């Protein structure tokens, strides 16, 4: 009887993970939770409504790198690599992003730097009113500064709240290898 129970639990767990695709290894960098997002590719991604924005990554990314996922009409791009990063890599990125954006004290914040127990994450938001779209970009760096996972979530401005929840949940679910 005990063996049947253990088997059922193990099978159920395996089935749910595989079936729902909630946790997946990305390269040799980290395990992430896609929360039901479906894997796609750059060619198919171009058929999505969100990809019609002239600022969509699918229209400007010229290297066949990273992976594309789709969820609720939103497009998620994921990439990462092993590297020797500076301790303040994310702080530098934040400073550079603000400088490029022309950010001044008092302007709305476009960035958020969060520290978790095993990694730090920088999230940046850009909105394109003329296209009706926006992008959350994030960079997560492992505690030992040897791995970086980055991604972009493209959304329509009407879906900004949903996008914000998705990106927040995704970031919290990162587990560096």
């Amino acid at each position, binding site marked *: 009887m005990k063996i049947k129970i253990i088997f059922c639990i193990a099978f159920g767990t395996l089935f749910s993970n595989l079936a729902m695709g909630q946790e997946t290894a990305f390269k040799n960098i980290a395990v992430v939770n896609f929360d039901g997002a479906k894997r796609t590719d750059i060619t198919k991604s171009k058929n999505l409504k969100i990809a019609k924005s002239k600022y969509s990554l699918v229209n400007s990314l010229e290297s066949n790198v990273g992976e594309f996922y789709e969820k609720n009409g939103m497009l998620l791009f994921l990439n990462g690599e092993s590297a020797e990063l500076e301790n303040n890599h994310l702080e530098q990125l934040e*400073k550079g992003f603000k400088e490029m954006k022309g950010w001044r004290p008092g302007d709305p914040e476009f960035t958020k730097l969060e520290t978790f127990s095993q990694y730090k994450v920088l999230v940046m938001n850009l909105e394109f009113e003329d296209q009706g779209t926006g992008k959350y970009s994030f960079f997560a760096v492992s505690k030992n500064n040897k791995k970086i996972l980055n991604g972009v979530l493209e959304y329509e401005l009407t879906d900004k709240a949903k996008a914000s929840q998705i990106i927040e949940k995704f970031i919290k679910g990162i587990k560096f290898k």
Partner: protein
Amino acid sequence: MKKRSLLLATIVFSLALLVFACRRDLNNFINDQEVPSSFLESAKIYHGINAKDFRPTDGTEFIKLRPLWRDSWTVKSGGNQLLIVPTIENHVSNRDYKIRRVFIFSKNGNEVKEGKIVEFVAVRYDLDEHLNEIISNYKQNSIKNFNGSIITYDINYFPESSAVFENGNKTNKQAGFVKAVNLRGNIRLTTSSRDGGKISSAGLLSALSGKRDAIGAFICNGCPTKMEPNCLYTFSYTNYYDSKGNITDTVCELVSVICTNTGSGSGSGSGSGSSGGMSASMSGFSGGTGSYGGNPPPSYDCTGTLNGSATMSECGCIGGTTGITACSKDPCKEKVLVTQKATRSDLKLQNADILVKSTTAPLKEYGANQKLLDPTKNTYKAETIYTDNATSTFGPEFSWNNTDGYWVGASHGHPGGTGPSPSDAVWLARPLASSELATAGATGMAQYKAMASSTTMTVNGNYVITVKDWPALVTLKNSFDSNPTAARNAYVNKANDYKAAHPSASDHEASVYALMKLYGSAINLYKAAAGTTTYTPLKLTTTDMVGDLACP
């Protein structure tokens, strides 16, 4: 009887000859203008000690005026006696103008203590008739019925002061002369003497470019529609001032044209001492009259070729016999100029200072304008480093005149370490729409385009932008101005896309990529490693990254 008549005639003739020969002395005697020999000798000694020969500077020959001692006379002024010595004068074409120039010596005791050169410019006024009266009162605030100006120089013809009289009363206006020549397509101006005078070069250059009348606060009466290359044009100008001493208006009047080639018709005039050479011609005026019409002068192109077809452009003289068919800014050639400019001790020190200030807390962008003292020369005006108190913006200040300088770009620091932004590129297109550059005409425009650059100093390296396609940059500038936020976002987005593909890339690298991707069609971008001034042109590689352009 016949002998007596002949003798009488001979005596009368001799007396007449004597009187005629002594006419000036008699005139001086009658008018109490005799020149004591001691005064004359003292003046010669004073002149011999104080009048110096100066070496030509910047291709401009120094003008040394020669006193014509034998024609001198004296004038009483306020109980003192002044020794008046005429000097070289050339012709004046404008019939409304009478101009006389003299040395004026004054004594203190038995010795000459002061010697000046004074030019009297009369407008529709009988100057010859009233010359002594004006000389006698030339330091006074009123001269009866006098309309015109009095310009005073030191003994070496360096300007000291000027006074403008209207209906006999001295005004707060200032006057001077400016001379213009067409040197291989570039109009070159020389103000009174070597470095005096204040006049809007832009205003006059505009007038000489065919805009004959009022341009802003600048009016040029009689300006030629075309500057002939073999002619010297002399203008009298009057500046009007507000209560704070700022120039509000300038009225310029063509007073003479002297051409050195045959067929150019310089008019008659007195021209005493003017031997016909251009530099000799630059020495002055006289009360003579004449016209500057005559046969049409020959046409020269910017290479100096008679009836040639070369024209001035943003990269200098092209076409015709130059063999250059179009402007092309080869980055491998231009990098030498970019490096030379950055290596100049004045700009190098300033750039280093800009970087230190921009990267010292509290972090703000600091910068300085880069302005030439003269658009035809490579001498930079000393400029102050300043900040707009912003962390991510810096505003350069354009000017194109001989007072504020000729803006050919700016240098500024980026505290965050990113490369040049779109603003830093479109800066360079903004002056094209400025009224100052517009009034400077085609020559000024070409000079600006040839020299314009934008420098960005960062801890990660230094960058210089030059323009390779002006129409393309203007299009990008217009797009930027129509929606700066969208332009900024497009730039940041492009940088983020680069980082998406290259996760560990820095913002510094990504920003340079974004600029080249979005603005590369219009600009050349150069980079020098941090702390150095040796610039290398950048390019986008076949793998869509930023790399050095290999130069032969």
